[in-house]
């Protein structure tokens, strides 16, 4: 299970362990944590919600895209759902590659793709209210009701 949606806190080392390999010289991880301030506004907590079955499929697709682009790469991603407090871990992406440059690039690719195609949403709660947050990439909406082909296939 290299690609998971988890209701429980993510154990970072468990995700890293999945990508350890004898041919790997570099492992990068990206850990998304809940930040207190966004545009000067104080977040109290977040709720993450996923369309779980599809989210796992889309995470697997991202893994496949990465292995096609960067040879000899291992990828594991776990995304948390439920209520998260400040500094809690929302997502862990681990990538191992023989050489370090690929590891940084492939990891960055993974987080950008998550923000494009993985059906997970967060609701921010402040003292004054709450709101579901839209696409943080602030890309245009998809007029055809579907992401562009290159967004879907990388």
């Amino acid at each position, binding site marked *: 299970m290299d690609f998971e949606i988890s209701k429980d806190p993510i154990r970072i080392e468990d995700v890293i362990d999945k990508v350890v390999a004898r041919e790997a010289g570099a492992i990068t991880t990206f850990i*998304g944590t809940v930040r207190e301030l966004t545009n000067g506004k104080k977040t109290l907590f977040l709720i*993450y*919600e*996923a*369309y779980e*079955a*599809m*989210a796992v*499929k889309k995470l697997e697709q991202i893994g496949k895209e990465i292995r096609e682009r960067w040879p000899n790469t291992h990828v594991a991603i776990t*995304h948390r759902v439920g209520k998260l407090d400040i500094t809690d871990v*929302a*997502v862990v992406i681990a990538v191992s590659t023989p050489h370090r440059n690929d590891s940084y690039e492939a990891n960055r690719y993974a*987080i950008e793709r*998550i*923000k*494009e*195609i*993985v*059906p*997970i*949403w*967060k*609701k921010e709660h402040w003292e004054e209210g709450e709101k*579901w*947050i*839209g*696409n*943080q990439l602030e890309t245009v*909406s*998809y*007029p*055809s*009701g*579907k*992401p562009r082909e290159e967004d*879907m296939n990388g």
Partner: protein
Amino acid sequence: MVNVLFFAHLKDVVGKEEVSVEGNEWNVARLKEKIAADYGLEGLESVMTAVNEEFADDETILSEGDTIAFIPPVSGG
């Protein structure tokens, strides 16, 4: 009949996670219009759609038992 799933703010507006509605042999665009009218959902034309867990466009034809999910702009990560 087809199953329709709602997430994020769409779920809050509709007040349900899932509904079962007519839709066999309709295309996605027609289903969207129907759902928008029934539940007073605005802006549904700019929301992505998944059919059986894969992104689909407005012209996709639905079949009996399909699961259709409306996917507002995602904000994971």
